[in-house]
């Protein structure tokens, strides 16, 4: 039995995007058509077996417009994002190639962008990356040659002007839908929308945010985003995820950089008889509340080690699939 839907060795010409699109990915088409889009983050395997990637992707592919493949998130080493993207593309699934500036310099990144595009990747998420100290190999050398924003501008230059940052011409420029991250519930709260504006200015087409557990904070953020007119220029997909237990929530809050969970949420998890179910319920409620906020174009679900719940969450939250 072949693992691939199509012949992986078939050589196809590099397609031009449909009119009005920069890349023509499933995600871009859904967003431009005004559909409430769903993206889901996948937990990368510590394995060289492609079957492990397909296994992990299977429950997510059914509900997602694109699957995010993390690039050593939290500075922990796993299978590379570009490798997983290439595998999922062969399956016909939409993927979001996450690029962090922590591990590679501008030479490696620009080369990988072309490589990914050639493998059929159409969405890219530009990230700064967590510090190496947060991960399993804190002795590594942090690179940070580019930052998320100069990375966005670099890939936009490659796509729209057809040149590397060196000015050398690219014969066939990559067709990519450019994403950036935002963290609306983390300090400096006042300046987060301004930073978002900078990302849009640098070239972002869509935004995926870190976990939103504090809806009032997020509403405030979105109000400012609307004042700046950013919701008209960029598609915003807030991040959510089901918590496993009060203990896990507390651990995430204190150990994982950039996660804000209000005490009220942790209290709810603590009092619940079945914390797992409560975590799922909270996640569904969050989606339903966030969906109603003006300027929100979709949802980004990060269900770390709880991927089996994603299908139920999407269905029970009432999102059309």
């Amino acid at each position, binding site marked *: 039995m072949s693992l691939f839907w199509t012949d992986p060795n078939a050589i196809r010409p590099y397609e031009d995007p449909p009119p009005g699109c920069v890349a023509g990915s499933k995600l871009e088409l859904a967003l431009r058509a005004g559909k409430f889009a769903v993206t889901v983050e996948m937990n990368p395997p510590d394995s060289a077996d492609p079957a492990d990637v397909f296994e992990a992707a299977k429950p997510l592919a059914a509900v997602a417009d694109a699957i995010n493949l993390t690039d050593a998130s939290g500075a922990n080493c796993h299978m590379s994002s570009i490798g997983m993207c290439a595998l999922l593309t062969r399956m016909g699934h939409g993927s979001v190639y996450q690029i962090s*500036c*922590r591990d590679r310099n*501008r030479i490696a990144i620009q080369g990988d962008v072309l490589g990914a595009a050639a493998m059929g990747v159409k969405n890219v998420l530009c990230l*700064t*990356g*967590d*510090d190496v*100290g*947060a991960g399993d190999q804190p002795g590594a050398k*942090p690179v*940070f*040659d*580019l*930052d*998320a*924003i*100069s990375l966005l*501008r*670099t890939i936009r*230059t490659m796509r729209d*002007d057809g*040149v*590397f*940052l*060196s*000015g*050398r011409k690219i014969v066939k420029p990559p067709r990519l839908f450019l994403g950036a*991250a*935002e*963290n609306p519930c*983390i*300090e*400096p709260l*006042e*300046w987060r929308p*301004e*930073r978002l*504006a*900078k990302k849009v*200015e*640098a070239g972002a087409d869509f935004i995926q945010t*870190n976990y939103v557990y504090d809806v009032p904070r997020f509403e405030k953020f979105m109000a400012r985003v609307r004042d700046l007119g950013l919701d008209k220029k960029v598609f915003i997909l807030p991040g959510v995820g089901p918590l496993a237990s009060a203990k896990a929530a507390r651990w995430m809050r204190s150990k994982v*950089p*950039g996660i*804000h969970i209000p005490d009220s949420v942790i209290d709810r998890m603590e009092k619940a008889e079945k914390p797992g179910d409560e975590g799922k319920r909270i996640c569904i409620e969050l989606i339903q509340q966030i969906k109603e906020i003006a300027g929100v174009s979709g949802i980004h679900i990060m269900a770390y080690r709880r991927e089996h719940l994603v299908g139920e969450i999407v269905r029970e939250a009432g999102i059309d699939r």
Partner: protein
Amino acid sequence: MYRARLFAINHSRGFEWVYRRLEAVLVALDPLFSTIGYNRLERSVAFVERGIKGFLFDCQMCGQCVLSSTGMSCPMNCPKQLRNGPCGGVRPGGFCEVKPEMRCVWVLAWDGASRMREGERIREVLPPVDRRLAGSSAWLRASREKAAALRVAREPERTTLAQSFAKAREIEPASAPLAEEPAKSVAGKDRR
């Protein structure tokens, strides 16, 4: 020095004024500098610059100073050396993800910029750092670049970068330099 750095950011408006005057003087001196030769001046000016900016801003001598666009808070003190704003890992109270005892360089930058006359500059997208210029004088570079704003570089790499970050080039020419570099300003050795 951390405390001097905090002082400079708290008085960003005053330092902005000083910097604007300094820049005007440097640009006015361009003909003199050209006569003497930028190459001859490089070492001594870089030495003085390192001393003053090192004390006031914890300057790391990236050679591409953008202080006026970052609220007088030097972005090279960010452990990730981000040039365009805070990362997503800022701790409650505005402390650094990597060095929890330090205030986030970019929280301070936005705070400093809010007091500055041209604080709006913080919104511009800045290019990545050219690591070859580490250790060289950003003051002389700014003078050269401002005085010869329209000079086009011989190297296509720099031209593309300057075009990709056009607005940054306009407000902070040293961040995307085009003029020919004197031999002594390109170190390349003291890269991290």
